[in-house]
């Protein structure tokens, strides 16, 4: 089959990168005990403000920083809402997603007088890594480094031990004289940074423009990857690769005749979402989340 070639690999890496970045953020947040369903909104904000930064300065790296900051702010907001104002984690996530969607569309209309999309902008520069891996930008190159770093942080460092404890038994952390709220603030803000970067990858690394709602549910697929990956950085990255692979496969197969019948493109588009549901359906019962995840403390 001429479908399985290096282009498919490159495509998989391309489509998985935003998923992995956001999923890493999800791992950090949930390990500290905070449910984060706003990865989607943070990604979208990162995409928009990344585009805006690049548009205003012509420099994609500035755009990256701006987009990352936007994600960071939303992450911080989620932390404030859940830790200080004691808002239910899911409600806060829903609100942030809605805020991000409405806010980016609002700004898009305000600034560009066009709700569909922004004008084209300077994207992130790429380096040629070799015949198989092709062109990769700074974000996709940072992914394996981030996976290793976050893994070391969570499982081999004192900070990681405390962060995981905050997600398992916040009382134990408090009794040890450490503020679990500060730990959660850190984790959730970082999840915003990472999701923001995921969004930056979408607008500055793939399309070189911003379109309304361009995150397209990827934030939720990233969350599913966190669960599928049992809340570990390497597990989540692996799961994200898995989802990315099927996304790439779907794009390849669109319009191609399979078994003599052409599968409608919409059915292919459904694939990542259906796959997520199947994975979740088969999985829970074996995946144990952090004990204090989503708790009211």
């Amino acid at each position, binding site marked *: 089959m001429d479908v399985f070639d290096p282009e498919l690999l490159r495509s998989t890496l391309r489509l998985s990168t935003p998923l992995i970045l956001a999923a890493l953020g999800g791992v950090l947040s949930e390990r500290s005990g905070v449910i984060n369903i706003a990865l989607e909104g943070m990604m979208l904000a990162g995409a928009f403000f990344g585009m805006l930064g690049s548009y205003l300065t012509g420099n994609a790296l500035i755009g990256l920083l701006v987009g990352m900051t936007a994600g960071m702010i939303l992450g911080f907001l989620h932390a404030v809402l859940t830790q200080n104002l004691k808002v239910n984690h899911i409600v806060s996530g829903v609100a942030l997603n809605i805020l991000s969607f409405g806010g980016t569309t609002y700004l898009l209309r305000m600034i560009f007088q066009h709700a569909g999309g922004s004008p084209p902008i300077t994207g992130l520069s790429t380096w040629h890594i070799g015949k198989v891996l092709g062109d990769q930008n700074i974000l996709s190159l940072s992914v394996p480094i981030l996976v290793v770093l976050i893994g*070391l942080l969570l499982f081999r460092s004192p900070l990681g*031990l405390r962060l995981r404890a905050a997600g398992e038994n916040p009382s134990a952390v*408090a*009794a*040890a*004289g450490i503020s679990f709220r500060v730990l959660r603030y850190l984790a959730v803000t970082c999840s915003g940074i990472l999701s923001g970067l995921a969004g930056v990858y979408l607008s500055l690394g793939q399309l070189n423009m911003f379109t309304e709602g361009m995150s397209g549910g990827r934030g939720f697929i990233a969350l599913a990857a966190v669960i599928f990956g049992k809340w570990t950085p390497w597990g989540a990255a692996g799961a994200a690769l898995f989802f990315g692979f099927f996304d790439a496969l779907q794009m390849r197969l669109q319009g191609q005749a399979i078994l003599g019948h052409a599968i409608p493109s919409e059915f292919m588009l459904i694939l990542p979402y259906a796959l997520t549901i199947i994975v979740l359906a088969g999985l829970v019962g074996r995946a144990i989340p952090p004990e204090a995840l989503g708790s009211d403390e």
Partner: protein
Amino acid sequence: MLPLTMRRENCTPIVEMLQITKRFPGVVANDSVSFCARRGELHALVGENGAGKSTLMNILYGLHRPDSGEIRIAGEPVEITNPGVAISLGIGMVHQHFMLVRAFTGVENIILGDEPSRLGLTNYRRARNEIQEICQQFQLVVDLDSPVGNLSVSAQQKVEILKALYRGVRILILDEPTSVLAPQEVESLFAMLRKLTSQGTCVILISHKLPEVMAYSDRITVLRLGRSIATIETSKASVEEITNLMVGSSSEMPAQPSQPVVTRQRHVLLSVRELCVRGKNRGVGPLSFDLHEGEILGIAGVDGNGQRELVEALVGLRKASGSCLLASCELLCLDTRHRLDTGIAYIPEDRFDAMIPNRPILDNAILGLQRAKPFSKHGILDCKSAHNHAHVIINELGIRSTGPSMIAGHLSGGNQQKLVLGRALSVNPKLLIACQPTRGLDTHGVQDIHRRILAARERGTGVLLVSYDLDELLALCDRILVMFKGKIAGIVSRGEATRETIGALMLGAKV
């Protein structure tokens, strides 16, 4: 004769809490309490449930800030704003409900917050070595590498104590440490505490178990209703004296069953055969036993030996195999609702699994009964009969409330427990399964509940009483079934049951 300086050192308190007052909404937990403890002594802090002992010690450990008062450690005034400060002052606390991360190993739990590190990464090897040294010093044997959630309760307690020792405590507070231990384990705990005090550590023991306090402590401070009443040398005190100080008046005789059940003549109510349940760490069963009408059968055992699984299997909250016949009706093929309908009333261990605190007494009065005849017809609720029922329960049980529309969460703990018990008894159950029905109640509350359970027994109800309080079981039960590692270690009838025999069975010894 000791040199003067040394004598003074031994007498200088290392902990002084002066005129501590702490208020919570609606209650004054500590009312100008003064307390001091010396180096190298085992000082017991006794009082009823609700006397303010835990609050006072939580203040010492920095979990609460006092509204007024002063604390001095080794003569220096200090402000203990959070546990971090307490730890740095050499104060350690082992709470009643352990502050452990179940998924972490013993080592990880012990070093949490004080991790030795190298180049930013945790140095587990150095941690382990240091902990092993401490274990050798105090002859503590405990598995440090398994997830703490898999350990027995007494092993978990050792990890908790190690947490304090690892940080070099000079003041160790233990909150009701023996409520989860078998009698023999209690002895080894106190042996270890003796070793600590002989090295100069001050040990403060919160307890309501007077026999232990009399046997092991050097001095006793009594709290009652938020005030400190007296501090006495243990050697000069008597149990009656302490009890009077604790309760404030001569307490009634604890309730006693009127006469022992003659099991041969009573009908078998519940017949359990080869019951096997899947537990958290191990399988439970096969269990076989009978419960008779008008009998109180106690389930004794250290927490975590299968009692919970047994009860959940009986009620239908856990899958089980085997046979459970209630008056010739096989329970295991019914779901929870239908089992309860056959005449079972169930009081779960956690009060909040039996009631909804945010809802009025009215809603709680029919919880579990909503499908039964007077309370609903053809799927529609009958509010009037629900109202009446709530009134009946309130009056019968003497629940202090403003009426059925009072929010259940605003009742005191004892009254909440009465509500749950009242609802359970209101259906005149054939079988009452009660788990820790008197947890957290003061003496009067405990006696009230005991009286009502005995009254149910008189009426012919069979009672399965699960409790971790041996005294309660010894006082009420006609027979006591002891569980150990998921199996029945033995069934002891009233005449033969003593703390020693039950205690031995609880630890798996053959009697």
